């Protein structure tokens, strides 16, 4: 067989496998969308669940997830951005920086169920928050932290040093330069990281299993010390509880679709910002 023939065959295989990868995504998305689209209507997203979750809407799960997103981001975003600033603008390359980065990488690699156990041990039991939005938000925030730190660092690194030098030449201090020059310039990229971590936080289940998630709670949470329902946990319960599958399935498809929509919106927005940024 000639080299050209070999290449033809190899590329054919590689192309096929790549199409398969894209195909997998579209099959999953298509499947959830087709099965879920008929379920979603105004009642579904605005009503309380009824009949042991087999009827009615999923409002408390949506609200719970929104609260969790807000809580975790409120906690993780400022810390993550500040940490990224310190890492990129202040820490010099050396053992200290390597160590902090290693720890951040390690935190990023910790399995989500371990976050769940840790959140339960620290926030729920030790600090006595109980199963609550607060405990769940903090746990999810810690999980999102490495992503935010990393994207902030990348965003700052992408800012050309001429910006910094120009600002110093004008007599601005380092802190002033960061606040007025560097951060505004890096902001779109930092926001991209934020949006992607919102997508991640909204879908995580294992960390909230033992820190906040309520099985069936047909009311909205009153305070941050309240338990709450959440979309991913709701989907898990609906998908695996054996009672009356025929009635549970449509609601499960609808819930999955809402989750997918959140993720899709986050990804689209992130890509949009990137595109605008590049122009």
């Amino acid at each position, binding site marked *: 067989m000639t080299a*050209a023939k*070999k*290449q033809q065959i*190899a*590329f054919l*295989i590689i192309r096929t*496998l790549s199409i*398969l*990868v*894209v195909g*997998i*995504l579209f099959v*999953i998305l298509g*499947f*959830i969308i087709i099965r879920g689209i008929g379920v979603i209507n105004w009642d579904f997203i605005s009503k309380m669940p009824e009949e042991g979750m087999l009827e009615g809407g999923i409002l408390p799960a949506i609200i719970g997830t929104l609260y969790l997103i807000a809580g975790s981001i409120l906690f993780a975003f400022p*810390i993550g951005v*500040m*940490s990224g*600033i*310190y890492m990129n603008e*202040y820490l010099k390359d050396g053992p200290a920086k390597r160590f*902090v980065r*290693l*720890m*951040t*990488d*390690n*935190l990023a*690699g*910790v*399995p989500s*169920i*371990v976050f769940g*156990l*840790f959140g339960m041990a620290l926030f729920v039991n*030790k600090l006595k928050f109980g199963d609550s939005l607060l405990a769940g938000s903090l746990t999810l925030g810690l999980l999102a*932290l490495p992503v935010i*730190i990393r994207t902030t660092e990348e965003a700052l690194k992408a800012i050309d040093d001429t910006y910094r030098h120009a600002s110093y030449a004008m007599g601005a*201090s380092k*802190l002033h330069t960061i606040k007025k020059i560097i951060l505004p310039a890096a902001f779109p990229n930092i926001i991209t990281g934020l949006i*992607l971590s919102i*997508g991640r936080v909204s*879908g*995580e*289940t*294992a960390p909230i*299993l*033992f820190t906040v998630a309520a099985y069936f709670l047909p009311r909205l949470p009153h305070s941050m010390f309240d338990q709450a329902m959440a979309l991913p*946990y709701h989907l*898990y319960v609906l*998908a*695996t509880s054996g009672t009356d599958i025929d009635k549970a*399935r449509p609601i*499960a498809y609808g819930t999955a679709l809402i*989750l*997918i929509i959140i*993720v899709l919106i*986050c*990804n689209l927005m992130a*890509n949009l910002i990137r595109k605008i940024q590049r122009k």
Partner: protein
Amino acid sequence: MNKLFKNLQVGILAFSSLVTTITVLLIVIFLFSEGLSFFNKKPIEPGFIIAVHPDNPITFINPTECKRIFDQDITDWKEVTGHAQPITLVTLEDIGNNYSEEQMGAEMEYLDTCYNHFIQGDKGVIAMIPERNFTNKIKANKLKLDKNSIASFVQGKEWFPTAKPIAQFGAFPLLVGTFLVSLGAILLALPLGLACAIFMSEITSVRIRSYMKPVVELLAGIPSVVYGFFGLVIIVPLIQKVFHLDVGETALAGSIILGIMALPTIITISEDALQNVPKSMREAAYALGATKWQTILTVLIPYARSGITTAAILGIGRAIGETMAVLMVTGNAANTTLNILKPVRTIPATIAAELGEAPNGGIHFQSLFALACILFLITMSINLYVNFISRKKA
């Protein structure tokens, strides 16, 4: 004053950068303090002891034997190095059935006498006695029971954390299950992911590549419960049909779903590795008359090998720690099996499934933390190793 304020601001920045380090340390402290206290306990119901007839030469028993005795798998003392003598089980319930409330006393104050009466009547007796009732009125040998050991935890073949009176904490099937599912996942994902990376980096146009990137990102963004749900309603029935199985919830189903979930990691990192190959290397290969494919095979892949290895290792790391999707599709039976068409149970799935029912601070609860320690150590070593090779390269 202004200077102080500035220093304060920088101090806050510095502290923020320590949050991840502090968190990792706290995770280690909380995980290991609960997990290690598991190894300070005995696997018996708290507040109970196990005793035998004073003439019985047995003084020591291991948890597995003990469970088999109480399950009546072992029915004669000669099976556990004693004399030939049929075993008679005595639990609190048996005492309640054989003696009247009057005999036991209103406050159970004569329970010890009842126990003693029962034990003296049968040389083959093994009795489970509440510790506070084990007075010197009972003429019996208290059996020694080992504390949970790391060796028996890792090697033990049976996981029955709520078995009574002796719980079984053998994590071996869970370890095997975890590795089986993850290995299967990586075997599926690596060729697929690598092909996709080669396609994006070497074969296709910039335009198509810019469409592929969001696809990969989206694949990474889909929540694991959604993958699990998809697996449950599509993959599981499919496997059941194709292989004519009774249940489709198998290790294979887990591997397929985890393989898909590991794809983005593998694609992104190996694509980066291929992109990092210097242009001069490609051009040198072309100058020698190599085709594109020959260049990929003999120059690019060997050069990017460490990057591709990293991709595979991180993919495995992702698969090992994944919880919800696996919990939903693998059937969760603690089998020690290498058959991918059997249900298996992984470590994360075990924690997720059982923690809700395990009483806080009890031995079962702690055993799950011990499992989490194993999980943490595995993923931590993976990260350290990857960090090590990427530093060596740099």
